[in-house]
């Protein structure tokens, strides 16, 4: 097949918006987390365990981690699109990143709900 330049995938806006929204979620969680550490000064394993046993902490942490993963997906894909020119290698790397992020998400669920 002739290697023609093809563009016009007609996506990108959702990802761009998602990256902005997830950045806000991460910033808010980070501020809340720092505030918690400063205010409650958890020192022992038991303190941390009690904090993370609360469903609100579990869910907000999960939301934060999902934001990290989606944010990372858009960012890492951008790097691949900029720098990895062979199409087959780009596809392979992108699939690899998606699979890794799914594993991380499941792992996060397992960790958070094991407390």
């Amino acid at each position, binding site marked *: 097949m002739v290697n023609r330049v093809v*563009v*016009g995938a007609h*996506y*990108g*806006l959702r990802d*761009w918006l998602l990256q902005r929204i997830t950045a806000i979620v991460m910033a808010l969680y980070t501020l809340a987390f720092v505030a918690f550490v400063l205010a409650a000064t958890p020192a022992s394993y038991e303190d941390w365990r009690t904090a993370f046993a609360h469903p609100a902490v579990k869910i907000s942490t999960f939301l934060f981690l999902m934001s990290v993963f989606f944010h990372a997906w858009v960012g890492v894909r*951008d790097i691949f699109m900029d720098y990895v020119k062979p199409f087959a290698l780009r596809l392979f790397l992108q699939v690899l990143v998606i699979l890794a992020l799914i594993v991380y998400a499941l792992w996060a669920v397992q960790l958070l709900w094991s407390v």
Partner: protein
Amino acid sequence: MKFSIYRYNPEKDDKPYMQDYDVELQPGDRMLLDAILRIKALDDSLSLRKSCREGVCGSDGMNINGKNGLACITPLKDLEEPVVLRPLPGLPVIRDLIVDMSQFFKQYHSIKPYLINDNPPPQKERLQSPEAREELNGLYECVLCACCSTSCPSFWWNPDKFVGPAALLQAYRFIADTRDDATSERLDNLEDPYRLFRCHTIMNCADVCPKGLNPTEAIGKIKEQMVRRMV
């Protein structure tokens, strides 16, 4: 005044090299282009594009001490010696300071840089309110010198796919024009991970624009229009 200028003649040279010049300026020499033309009088093999010599035609875009600009409106007194002149980065060099701008203009043409309005034109002109006309300020002044696009890393990596700041500024110029009827098609044409979303808001474009325009802001407004259309 001392200069170090990129020289490359593909018919004679194996590879590009930098040539040093020391040229005596005359009292009337104010801009960089004046000095380059003094050098050209000494060495007529030095090649560059120039035309209007007042920042309107956009021909003499080049890399001046590491930053893209128009030689004709760059004051000599602001330049550190030796003044290093190179062709605009990222485009194929034809000779010395002359680059092949085909890719740049191909991207420009891809955004349909003309008014699209199928309604029959009124007897005199298509009217705009003063507010609607105000929106075009900072957009229509672009002279297509390519200083911005060739300073953009996203354009360096994907010049065949990313539209680039200059053409995106022009795309917004027509999206913002109340006399244009093809807004939605224009947004469709740009909604693409490569064509528009290779812009990572690096802002080199706004930093170098010799006309003081801000392509990054225009790109942001294109994205805003897309979000408005979606939600």
